[in-house]
């Protein structure tokens, strides 16, 4: 008799606690869902904040980094003397490796017509160091910039580059388009 009573009491405590916890979880979930984003949320670099510090090449969990240089051709001046391609001081425009800014020679220069050249990034070689983006922004149009490529990125819960980015340029973004492109000359609102 007594045992049965204890048992009932225990069961009662357990079910009221359970009920309370379901309510609590429901509350947390409901509140969280109110602010939830429907789309996929991914890490991306704001190219207007990035200062090409070089950590994107070294701090990604992947090696080589999931960060690559992206070239917005519609912004490019097709310069012969490309600030993203050539080292400062090497104005002889030769494609010799020692003149190239890119440490892995990942940029292909192709003659289009006098005096214009097209620059294409070879993603397999690019390590995301940002040297070209820095040069292009300093001397050219800034049409080269760094982005996290989402076919490579494994979408860490906390991007380990974001943690060390000195410019606080890496944020989670939502929406159908997982890139922050520099298409025109205005900062994204």
């Amino acid at each position, binding site marked *: 008799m007594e045992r049965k009573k204890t048992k009932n009491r225990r069961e009662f405590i357990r079910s009221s606690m359970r009920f309370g916890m379901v309510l609590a979880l429901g509350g947390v979930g409901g509140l969280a869902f109110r602010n939830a984003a429907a789309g996929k949320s991914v890490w991306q670099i704001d190219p207007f904040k990035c200062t090409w510090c070089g950590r994107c090449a070294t701090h990604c969990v992947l090696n080589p980094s999931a960060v690559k240089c992206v070239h917005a051709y519609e912004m490019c001046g097709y310069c012969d003397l490309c600030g993203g391609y050539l080292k400062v001081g090497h104005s002889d425009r030769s494609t010799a490796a020692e003149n190239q800014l890119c440490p892995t020679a990942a940029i292909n220069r192709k003659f*289009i017509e006098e005096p214009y050249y097209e620059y*294409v990034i070879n993603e397999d070689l690019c390590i995301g160091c940002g040297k070209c983006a820095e040069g292009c922004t300093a001397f050219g149009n800034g049409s080269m910039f760094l982005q996290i490529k989402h076919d490579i990125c494994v979408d860490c819960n906390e991007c380990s580059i974001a943690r060390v980015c000195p410019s606080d340029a890496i944020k989670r973004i939502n929406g159908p388009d997982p890139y922050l492109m520099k298409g025109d000359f205005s900062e994204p609102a």
Partner: protein
Amino acid sequence: MRLKTTILAFLLLITSGPVLWAQQQRFPMPEFESGYQYPDAKLPGSGSLAMEYFDVGILVLLLAVTSWLAIKKRSRKWILLLMTGALLYFGFWRQGCICPIGAVQNVALGFSDPTYAVSWFIIALFLLPLLFSLAFGRVFCGTACPLGAIQDIVVVRPVRVPVWVRKSLGMFPFVYLALAVLFATTGTDFIICRYDPFIGIFRMGAEFHLIVIGIGFLLVGMFVARPYCRFFCPYGALLKTTSIFSKNHLSITPSQCIDCKLCKDSCPFDAIDHPTDPKVIGKMKDKTKHFLLYAALIPLLIVVGGWAMSSAHIFLARANPDVYLAHLLVRDPSVMEDLDNLDVQTFLGSDRTVDELVNDATAIQATFRSGAWFTGAFIGLVAGLFLVSQFVIRRRDDYQPNRGDCFSCGRCFKYCPVQK
């Protein structure tokens, strides 16, 4: 040559300010006579949204099937099979970041920072295992969790951990959880992800020390079964709390325990509760006094915990990059000349002033002060409940899995000689 370099360097100086270059295009795009069309920048999307629905579907399926396997079918073999499958899928293929353990931090940050939108997918990841735990026990730990699975399959010679060690170390997950929430809500860091010991193994590559820690956990785990689950996992703290009050739970015996003691030592995680010693039951009355005494102590522990943590808030806040930088600059302004210090140099190159930085840092420190109070109070509460629970004697007549500690692994089933 020299002159040119100087001019270029000068140009770099005056143009690299973020404001200037946002305003003009130095070289307009040429009008090509050859009819050249510029190529598209190749920007592949990030797996489709369908993949996330699929992952949530897989998780629900795993949890449901495991519940059935653990409670009705009672099959270790199938549980092991599912566990291996989940390890391969969530661990090695999806590479470990579809993870309710880390999702705790996203949900916490979502509450403190209204601009941070948590995706519904992460909220679902966070809630589902807990709801299943309330209904069927820790079935998530049984199969679906890749961290649990990788530890479970390396168990070879489990040793008994003395009960006091087990119980006191078992408090750490709550401390870890409280700290993780503190660091996440202050926007400082996701410590659970940063110190996830197995992610380096799942991705076959990470910082060296993480790989070492991961392998260390697995080596220790051959003898002390599931060390991360039992003594670290912060999500395990939540699963444990919910599982204690679960509606249904697996049992060792398919019908009625006959106290044959065969299953006594079958659980590698020491999660089997033995029948209560009659001698102890006799002493129940003495314990009531202790119980009341310690229960009265709980409010004190809460206050002491809160006070202790919040007096450490300056130290804790140092983990925040802004606070750290502000400290550095205020303490020792000569770092500004250190050209190798990337953080300092980037800060000096930005349009933020030291005063602004210090103001921000002070605000963050203030959040830490109040946040750390809650963290400490929570830890005090857990410690108090732990003490009190030492004096609660449950009368048990048979061998049962401990609902809080049992991972639903199913190893004990085969030890029970009773037939259905």
